[in-house]
């Protein structure tokens, strides 16, 4: 049986090996992706993000358990930062995950951010494809909501959940990190702690403010009007528009079912105590409701288009960069052109034109 067949059959050893291959962008990995691609696109991809210390991993574990209880299989991708100094990484998620019995219905893989060609999101997307093709019903992607790269990873998800906890000043951090805008569902975890209700109230207020600010055609629509269903047409948050450029490229069509405000979707705020499983059932229900909402409003189809476009563009860019880096002559030309641009002897457009020409002739 080929590796691809084994992956499609859900063999865990094969899935693990396949992830290594695609993660490292090896030729075998590319061949594998070709072989399995037709069988992807079925899983519900859920992004989980939030500041450190709010209990994301414990929550992911609890969600996985709840999803398993309903008979569905789960894949988890836990993203942790690579140290810029050593190139090494602690992939610490395992410590809190998957306790006790080994459940073949849960597959967890840690992913370091590394300095990846084509960006972290491209690698994460390929890992999602492998898990998806292996038959996982739900794929949870967990990141520390810190940087742009992580925000981009969250854009791969159908449903994004932003996790906060009371008493850490997270609300402020969340705003700073720009992760408030990307939530489809909000969670206040560790809700048995003091200040949980206040955190929920503040979040609700901020979500309403955010929708009022971004969603309205003018700054004149009041929060209660938004709630009443006066949804604006064009919903495109600052983060998304400025992110991968997907929105600017035309994929971010009105009501594409992503972001903080697809038509008719008010992000719920759910209290959980992940450690004890409290509120987790409700959370899983919210995930399903959001997916159902996307399907009903055409959001799923819209983002399938958008994703395809973004993916092709990402891969294209990565391949182009690789083509330049991989050919000594072109690399020399590249260096030379850059110098000339810097010296204002040449404009960047002409330089790019010359490089494209060089790649083209190299290929033929």
């Amino acid at each position: 049986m080929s590796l691809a067949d084994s992956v499609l059959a859900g063999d865990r050893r094969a899935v693990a090996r396949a992830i290594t291959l695609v993660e490292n962008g090896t030729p075998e990995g590319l061949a594998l992706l070709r072989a399995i691609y037709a069988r992807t696109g079925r899983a519900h991809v859920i992004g989980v993000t939030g500041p450190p210390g709010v209990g994301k991993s414990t929550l992911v574990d609890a969600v996985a358990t709840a999803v398993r209880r309903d008979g569905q299989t789960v894949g988890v991708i836990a993203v942790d930062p690579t140290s810029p100094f050593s190139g090494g990484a602690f992939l610490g998620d395992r410590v809190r995950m998957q306790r006790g019995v080994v459940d073949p219905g849960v597959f967890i893989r840690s992913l370091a951010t590394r300095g990846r060609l084509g960006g972290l999101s491209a690698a994460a997307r390929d890992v999602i494809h492998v898990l998806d093709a292996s038959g996982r019903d739900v794929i949870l992607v967990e990141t520390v909501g810190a940087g742009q790269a992580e925000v981009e990873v969250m854009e791969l998800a159908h449903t994004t959940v932003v996790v906060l906890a009371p008493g850490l000043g997270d609300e402020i951090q969340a705003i700073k990190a720009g992760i408030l805008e990307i939530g489809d569902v909000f969670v206040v975890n560790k809700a048995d702690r003091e200040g949980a209700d206040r955190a929920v109230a503040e979040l609700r207020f901020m979500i309403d403010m955010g929708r009022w600010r971004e969603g309205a055609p003018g700054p004149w629509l009041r929060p209660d009007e938004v709630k009443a269903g006066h949804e604006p047409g064009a919903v495109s948050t600052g983060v998304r528009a400025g992110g991968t450029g997907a929105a600017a490229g035309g994929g971010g069509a009105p009501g594409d079912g992503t972001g903080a405000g697809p038509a008719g979707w008010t992000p719920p705020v759910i209290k959980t105590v992940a450690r004890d499983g409290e509120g987790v059932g409700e959370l899983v229900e919210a995930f399903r409701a959001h997916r159902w909402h996307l399907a009903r409003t055409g959001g799923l189809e819209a983002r399938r288009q958008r994703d395809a476009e973004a993916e092709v563009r990402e891969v294209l860019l990565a391949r182009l960069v690789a083509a330049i880096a991989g050919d000594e002559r072109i690399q020399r030309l590249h260096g030379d052109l850059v110098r000339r641009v810097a010296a204002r002897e040449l404009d960047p457009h002409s330089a790019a034109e010359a490089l494209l020409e060089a790649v083209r002739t190299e290929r033929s």
Partner: protein
Amino acid sequence: MDRPIRVLVAKPGLDRHDRGAKVLARAYRDAGFEVIYTGLDRSPEEIAEMAIQEDVDVVALSILSGAHDVLVPKVIRLCREAGADDVLFLAGGIIPDEDRPRLTEAGVAGVFGPGSDLDEIIRFTRENVRRKVPR
């Protein structure tokens, strides 16, 4: 660019002496490895499952309870049964000299007792990783 070596630092058994495991994990990270730490109190089945799913190149087992004679061979057997036959296994902790041959026989490539030099462990790991590290 070479991909980083992936290592699972594992604490089998019930002993909770994780000082050595954590120092080793940190040293591996600082040496450019991608480190997955199992946390305390892991059964051989859990460790083997993590090694498989994470597709690691190395499993470094730290154990100070004296149960190494039972637990270390069990982890290796479970990994191999699941098809992970090209993993480098290391063992550390309180392991008497006379137990070493049995661990070696079970598939442990290197045994590092108390006072082992971290650089030496890292060098040994790099030189003995069994899977070729693809470009």
